[in-house]
């Protein structure tokens, strides 16, 4: 996972344009509280757009009947492995348009790898354990980051060009969970005020 992040970060650095400056984005909820784990993506217009370097290896494990991490950001073309670290079986699936797949993971330490070749949000589930849920954001822009506990995401090398800025969160009340705005050339900060719904409580199947 760490190697993958380093590789992804190196890809971001190599792809950074020369005319760049920091852009800080803040995401808050309706009450003004910071929203963490929102995924913010900058799509510069025209030639300033940059896709991340494809490839890299990432991990979404299953442990204690949960996915870890709950949220992953990977570039288009990434390979994500799904090791089962639980002593029970998992049946991992996704029906998201960005990637449809299912993995039958039999036993502890068994793993399968999935290649993600299309940008979008991939919602993960386990057909055996309904309470398991996680998300993979497959991005085609090098300027993609998640907000921290202060609701902040910063692009140190944002291009000095007009751009479209999006924010996605799994519980954001908006079509597809995404809100967006335009940012002008030279704009150094932006903010989103979003409405979140509570995380869905897992529904027991009674048996």
């Amino acid at each position, binding site marked *: 996972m760490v190697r993958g992040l380093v590789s992804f970060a190196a890809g971001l650095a190599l792809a950074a344009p020369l005319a760049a400056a920091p852009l800080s984005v803040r995401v808050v909820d309706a009450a003004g509280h910071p929203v963490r784990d929102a995924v913010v993506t900058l799509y510069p217009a025209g030639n300033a757009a940059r896709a991340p370097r494809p490839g890299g290896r990432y991990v979404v494990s299953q442990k204690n009947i949960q996915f870890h991490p709950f949220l992953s950001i990977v570039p288009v073309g990434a390979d994500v492995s799904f090791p089962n670290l639980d002593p029970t*079986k998992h049946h991992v699936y996704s029906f998201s348009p960005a990637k449809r797949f299912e993995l039958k993971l*039999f036993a502890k330490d068994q793993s399968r790898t999935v290649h993600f070749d299309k940008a979008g949000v991939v919602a993960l589930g386990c057909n055996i354990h309904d309470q398991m849920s996680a998300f993979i954001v497959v991005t085609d822009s090098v300027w993609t980051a998640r907000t921290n506990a202060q609701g902040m995401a910063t692009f140190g090398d944002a291009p000095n060009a007009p751009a479209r800025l999006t924010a996605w969160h799994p519980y954001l009340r908006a079509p597809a969970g995404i809100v967006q705005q335009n940012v002008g050339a030279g704009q150094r900060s932006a903010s989103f005020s979003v409405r979140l*719904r509570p995380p869905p409580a897992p529904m027991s199947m009674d048996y």
Partner: protein
Amino acid sequence: MACAAKRLLVRSAIPWGCAIAALWATPASAADFFSADTLEVSGDLRLVAVDGPESWVDGGFGKLRSGSNGDLRVTPQLGNASIVWKPEFTWSLGATIVGSLQGGERTEAGLSQAYLTFKPMRGTKIAASGRLGLMWPPVSLEHEGADWHVRDSITPSAINSWIGEEVRPVAAEATLAATLGAHQLRATAAVMAANDTAATLLTFRGWALHDRTTLAFHRQPLPPLGEFTGVQAPYTHPLIDLHEGFAHRPGYYAKLVWQPPVPVRFELFHYDNRANPEDVTLDMEWGWHTRFDNAGLVAQLGGGTELRAQALSGRTHMGFVEEGRRWIDNRFRSAFVLISRPFGPYGLAVRAEAFGTHNRGGWWTDEYDERGWSAMIAGKRDFGHFTGLVELLHVSSRNGSLEEQGLAPRQRQTQGQAELRMRW
């Protein structure tokens, strides 16, 4: 009873046979019969201090699992012990078989649940699943796990005590679950059989609060029957099919669950065993046409605090119609509110409930009506495989017909319990 049990076993052998046959078409790598994952063992030891009347388990009118003769009685007990086997035949087909031992007064052991589970890989956002066999319908908001233990206390509410003792049919159940935007929906429907005597105990004894569940083919004692002595057997088999031919008069149940995009879940459940109230065995066990509706609510109140509530209302008929009234026409209802909250490794739960029956039959009239309430507070602490629980429960009820038995119409009972629960 013997004939009914034989019919049940023979007819039930067909779906079980189909399931076993399906094993032969299973890739060996997907099957798991006897690994550690397929076995669970649980049990509890408890110390019970109780006053009030003799327990219904001993043939009395007491509403708790243990009783006394009016004085405070303190006894150590083996509560419940269960062994759960959950073999997996394929990725989608499995089984759950539960053997239980019910300790305390009238200790007995036997089969608790036995059903096939089918949960194919969802092809869309709609998930389908099914169960087939001997099982509790999905009513209780207090029980969890295949061993059907009570989650936050030792003693369940009157509603779910009754479900545990009299409402466990042989059923074929299908469930569809779907996500529509931020809303989650689930619909369950089942056809069922072998639950024709449901509400016998509830009518003759009244509501009760205990965690003693019925074992397959075992019988539950009834209190003194008064004018029904000789007409009704002094016991009831909750798992029995009285009508000619197994499942020739099937009942059904259905459930709807809605979870909107707020931490609240609503449930509606309807049950109708469609038993013929004029069916009777040579042992004088009657068909009881019992139907009820149950509404459930689960709400997360923040900080881990959870509110759960159920309200059940039903009606049962038994016997022949004379002068426009069936021998027994009993309307029963109960409701409870349970609030639980974790405090680190500790948990606290409080529950308040009310219950009652309303008789308008030809033989049993309003003099047999019951009104009551109970309050419970329980605490627990988890220690890995162990859970320690303490519980204080008070129940008060009034039934005018108890005077015929030489008892006071108003019965009060207080019970304190300390339990060590184990699970592997």
